[in-house]
């Protein structure tokens, strides 16, 4: 009896432990599920706000427009139907609020009861019109031609260069500037941090005596422990004005400010991992090199560094990973302009900053909301690639 109870207890505990062991895997799967199920939705959503339609005159030969064309028409950058694949006809862009420039209040009725027929009339009369109308005010026998605005597809989402998630009548969701901005800031951060990090790792692994090391190690851990919002705050009050002064720039909120902060934040990762890698060099190899008359320095760069190069690259990649996902610090210092970066001295907008800044304002369940989850998917995929390549590199080393 006693032993069977004991056995039962053992199995129970093992079961419990096993369940705990699956929690991380489960979480990863759940994250993937939630991100992607919300994010994929962006491709099945019309860029035109629900409850509204875009209508043309019946005689117009245009049958479909892209979201970008709609935006350019309403921004008056396209002013002739010729430029949108139609006949030579000037475009009249019409919104509901413009109705009072065409009709008096009397004509519309005291409670706008004549509004639908007047809109109908307007669309019928003007061959060049494009009207953005609420379905509520669409007449029963609508005489215009409702056109479809093409849904966004993965290609235009990833390759589009315009990020105007709240543009009306049609939202513009091109994530390319955000993707490039994220990678650009992170890449520059590593360029800045890698030499410093590597030098510190070499110093700690090969040059410093134990006493210095024992002081430096916790100091670097401390650097890793400072919250990102404190780094952001420091960047905001110190780095941004500094960059502006030093480079005599019109603005201090630049990719460089972000890269400097991210570089500092990535330092502990780079230092710890590359120091570990440097230390794995077999003593025999080092001693052989020294015995052959090589100096310590020659041993370091001809034997130790080549031996631990895979560990060092893992450190660099993980450092990029840390930088890619960083949110608050970047949000506070990079200026967040959604343009494709050309130099390091311009403002950029990263994916995490976009999510943090816009999620709160986006109507939940709407296209913008889903687009932000889709951005989360991209971020997830980038970090997954980073993790897998580190796994691959370290597996190869073994």
């Amino acid at each position, binding site marked *: 009896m006693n032993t069977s109870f004991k056995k039962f207890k053992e199995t129970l505990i093992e079961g419990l432990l096993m369940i705990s062991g699956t929690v991380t895997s489960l979480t990863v799967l759940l994250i993937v599920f939630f991100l992607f199920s919300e994010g994929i939705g962006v491709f099945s959503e019309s860029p035109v*706000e*629900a*409850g*509204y339609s875009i209508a043309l005159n019946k005689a117009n030969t245009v049958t479909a427009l892209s979201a970008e064309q709609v*935006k350019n028409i*309403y*921004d*008056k950058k396209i002013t002739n139907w010729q430029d949108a694949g139609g006949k030579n006809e000037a475009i009249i862009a019409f*919104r509901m609020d413009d109705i009072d420039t065409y009709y008096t209040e009397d004509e519309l009725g005291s409670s706008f009861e004549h509004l639908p027929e007047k809109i109908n009339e307007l669309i019928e009369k003007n061959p060049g019109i494009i009207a953005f109308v*609420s379905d*509520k005010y669409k007449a029963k026998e609508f005489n215009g031609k409702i056109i479809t605005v093409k849904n966004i597809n993965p290609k235009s989402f990833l390759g589009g*260069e*315009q*990020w*105007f*998630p*709240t*543009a*009306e009548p049609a939202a513009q969701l091109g994530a390319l*500037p955000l993707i490039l901005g994220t990678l650009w800031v992170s890449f520059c951060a590593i360029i800045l941090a890698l030499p410093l990090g590597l030098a510190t790792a070499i110093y700690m692994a090969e040059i410093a005596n134990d006493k210095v090391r024992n002081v430096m190690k916790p100091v670097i851990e401390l650097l890793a422990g400072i919250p990102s919002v404190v780094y952001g705050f420091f960047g*905001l009050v110190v780095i*941004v*004005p500094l960059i*502006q002064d030093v480079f005599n720039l*019109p*603005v*201090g*909120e630049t990719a460089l400010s972000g890269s400097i902060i991210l570089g500092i934040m990535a330092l502990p990762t780079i230092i710890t991992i590359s120091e570990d890698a440097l230390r794995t060099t077999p003593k025999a190899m080092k001693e052989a090199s020294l015995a052959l008359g090589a100096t310590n320095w020659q041993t370091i760069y001809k034997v130790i560094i080549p031996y631990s190069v895979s560990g060092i690259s893992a450190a660099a990649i993980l450092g990029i990973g840390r930088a890619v996902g960083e949110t608050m610090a970047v*949000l*506070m210092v990079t*200026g*967040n*302009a*959604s*343009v494709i970066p050309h130099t390091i001295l311009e*403002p950029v*907008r990263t994916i995490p900053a976009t999510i*943090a*800044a*816009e*999620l*709160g*304002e*986006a*109507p*939940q*369940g*709407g296209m*913008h909301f889903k687009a932000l989850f889709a951005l989360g998917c991209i971020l997830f995929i980038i970090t997954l690639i980073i993790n897998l390549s580190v796994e691959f590199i370290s597996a190869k080393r073994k």
Partner: protein
Amino acid sequence: MNTKITFLTLILASAVFSSCKNEGAKTEETTTAVSITMKGSDTVLPLAQKEAEDFMKANAGSTITVTGGGTGVGISALQDGTTDIAMASRDLKATEKLKLQEAGKDIQSATIAYDALAVVVNPANKVQKLTREQIEGIFTGSIANWKEVGGADEKIIVYSRESSSGTYEFFKEHVMDKKNYASTILSLPATGAIVQSVGQTKGAIAYVGLAYLDVSIKALEVSYDQGKVFVAPSVAAAKDGSYPVSRPLFYFYNKSSEAKVKSFVDYALSDAGQAVVAAIGYVPVK
């Protein structure tokens, strides 16, 4: 081992303690003290925060939670029933109205203040006034240098709020003739940060609520009639309508929770509440 035990006891103790307190709070609600949650627009936040602070001082035992996040978050929380009042710097959108209807909510609104938007530049900038058309050109990117509008030969740096904020949309609709912003504009997550950046940046231009004006930035006079009359932004000018760029700020709430929130909304609309509006720098409704 001791650390762990102390730690666990602490947590347990606080859990027990908190559950007791929760009971207490619930019974209190039926009496005069109210517990209200508010959520929404970052523009309204400083105002709501101060009103809540003063309201709680006057009504001991009441608690008001003020959470930011944005107008969108506030309205969807109202729909889910997770907030009592949604603070908004824009009116409800058609989709939001539909969703609220579907959720069976009868939404009441109160206009608690007006916010006038000032167009601001760095104090070192010699430009004093702009027409609406010039502002539109600057924010859409067709005017890129200050010399085109009578200033020094300097690149114009445009700062804006995040694309999803109510302020961003209001400015787009009423000043930029609904055209979209240039994609090169810098967007900052909060108006406070914009004020700081404009104060630091020589070629900067931005729009901020009247409440945010201080000596580190300079407000421009704006003309809405192609340059005939220029008006400087001020509470008085916004009140009499001569300064055109102003918008209402709302508290939205559900009819069913009217009894609960009424005392606070009434306070916001009372003379004392409107004095707070003026003190913060918004335009009173009366």
